[in-house]
């Protein structure tokens, strides 16, 4: 429960931010919230599901492009509802994830390092494909994507202004954050822990490892797709960089620095890294990327649980001594819910 209290505190702090920072920063923070959503999706699939996806931005990009195509009326001119766009974006991303996941995980599935390299290659292929798909803007991308239009009880409101947009996005991100947090605290979360640590034992217990992997992959893709769809409405612009390699690896850095096994830490990792980037890149100029690379390296080596998650766990962990934390990746000790068995 402490976890959700910290979550509530974090979102409350974010909610009062527009009162203290100017409209420029509010606009930037809105973007960062969307990046945070992408980080949550990556944390879910990687930190909880144990699937190291080096191309998480492909789902973000698919969501972005689908949203753009729908709301610009490129498919059917009368059907430009933002709601349909958002739903289609999430559906398209998760369908793609199911297809890709089936290809990757079925049978003698691919895992670990191989999976990282293959997802990286797929992200590169998609980026290249979108750069050359001229019907979808090619290298220049799609411009003039309308902002989200909220229609409720016959009233409609377009999200042009910065502050209302911020609160709508913040609300959406908070809902998804708490929903996913709740989800991983249910027995489904336990299954994810099991699948991350001992997939073989889970299949002995009669669970379908493939289905669980697919479900978490698709769910994470849907969240990433939603993030992408929101993102293009903020900037009004969808380009191949959304789908590709750079954003994928950036997301990976946010999540690794924040802490992949804790949704809140991953979310804040994205926001902190972006905020730090805008501040420090002014001070350090080109040295910022060097510093980021080194910080990433150090945090992976010294704090594998993440820069933010480590202090968080201290904060939460005090009262939870009775329950040992879930073992880290590659830790040979059995996951908590499983009875101790002699090692193979």
């Amino acid at each position, binding site marked *: 429960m402490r976890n959700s209290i910290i979550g509530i505190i974090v979102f409350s702090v974010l909610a009062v931010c527009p009162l203290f920072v100017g409209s420029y920063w509010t606009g930037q923070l809105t973007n960062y919230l969307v990046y945070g959503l992408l980080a949550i999706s990556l944390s879910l699939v990687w930190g909880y599901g144990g699937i*190291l996806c080096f191309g998480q931005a492909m789902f973000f990009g698919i969501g972005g492009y689908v949203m753009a195509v729908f709301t610009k009326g490129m498919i059917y001119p009368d059907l430009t509802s933002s709601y349909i766009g958002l739903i289609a974006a999430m559906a398209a991303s998760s369908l793609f994830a199911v297809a890709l996941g089936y290809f990757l995980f079925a049978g003698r599935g691919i895992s670990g390092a*191989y999976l990282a390299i293959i997802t990286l290659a797929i992200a590169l292929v998609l980026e290249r494909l979108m750069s050359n798909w001229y019907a979808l803007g090619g290298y220049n991308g799609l411009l003039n994507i309308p902002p989200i239009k909220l229609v409720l009880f016959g009233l409609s409101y377009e999200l042009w202004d910065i502050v209302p947009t911020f609160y709508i996005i913040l609300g959406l991100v908070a809902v998804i954050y708490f929903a996913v947090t709740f989800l991983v605290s249910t027995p489904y979360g336990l299954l994810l822990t099991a699948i991350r640590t001992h997939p073989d034992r889970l299949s002995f217990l009669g669970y379908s490892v493939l289905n669980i992997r697919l479900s978490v992959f698709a769910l994470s893709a849907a969240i990433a797709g939603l993030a992408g769809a929101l993102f293009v409405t903020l900037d009004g612009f969808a380009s191949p960089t959304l789908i590709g390699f750079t954003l994928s690896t950036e997301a990976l850095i946010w999540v690794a620095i924040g802490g992949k096994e804790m949704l809140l830490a991953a979310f804040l990792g994205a926001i902190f890294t972006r905020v730090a980037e805008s501040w420090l890149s002014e001070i350090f100029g080109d040295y910022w*990327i*060097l510093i980021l690379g080194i910080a990433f*390296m150090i945090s992976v*080596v010294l704090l594998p649980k993440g820069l933010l998650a480590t202090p968080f766990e201290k904060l939460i962990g005090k009262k939870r001594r009775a329950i040992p934390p879930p073992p880290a*990746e590659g830790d040979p000790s059995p996951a908590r819910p499983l009875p101790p068995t002699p090692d193979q």
Partner: protein
Amino acid sequence: MDILPVFLDASSYILILILVALGLMIVFGMMGVINMAHGELFMIGAYVMVMAQSYGLPFVAGLILAPLVVGFLGLVIEAGLIRHIYLRPLDTILATWGLSIALKQLIVLLFGPESQSVVGPVDGSLVIGDFQYPIYRLILMGASIALIAGTFWIFLKTDFGLMARAVIARPETAAALGIDTRRMYRLSFVIGTALAGLAGALVAPLISVDPQMGLGYLVPGFLSILVGGAGPLAGVLVGGTIVGGVNNLLAVWISPVTALIAVYIIAILIIRLRPEGLLGNRRAK
């Protein structure tokens, strides 16, 4: 279109790709470390050549300096970074990824983001009747073949190679027999990085040397290893030939974009259908 130059170009690309992949493979096969910074080490090799030429040193001096500098860098990386995360193979991907970002930016800071050019040691073309081909490309191919053969010789015929293969196959048993596995790891890492540096220096006159060049070789290099099979060294020859050959020939015959997409998809399919690689045995893993 003349077919011979196309095949020669493809072969020279394949040979460089094999050189890069061979370094990756030594590190991956031996230590299970995925070195995402390998492309940047390749790039630094090329930049050492740029530096050497700007100081007026001859091409050969660059060729000698590049593996030394990059190999030393490899030693530092092994001692400072890789050594601490041997037991966490997935974290090596992330840590070396951070390293690759840092190295790339370091080069941008030192040399600027624009591409540099390197002058080849020989300019002329080999002319036999109608057939013309740049001499340097032929030298490059010869040198690459010699290097690949040399690496195979080291790993298959020398005592060091025997110990290295013992460490790959059974690290604990090898350690129990008195082989210093730590030292073997370090040496192989240095050999792998030095190879990358040398490959970068060799290919520098033919391509544009810029801070982003590493990725263009890293991903095909990894795909070559996985296609060929991470077990036997020869796998890299098969994998490199398939990945490099398909990429280069399709780029000439259709378009570079189609080639890249096609080669990645073919590689992904092969890896998916035969995770142990074309030459790997099913028992592995």
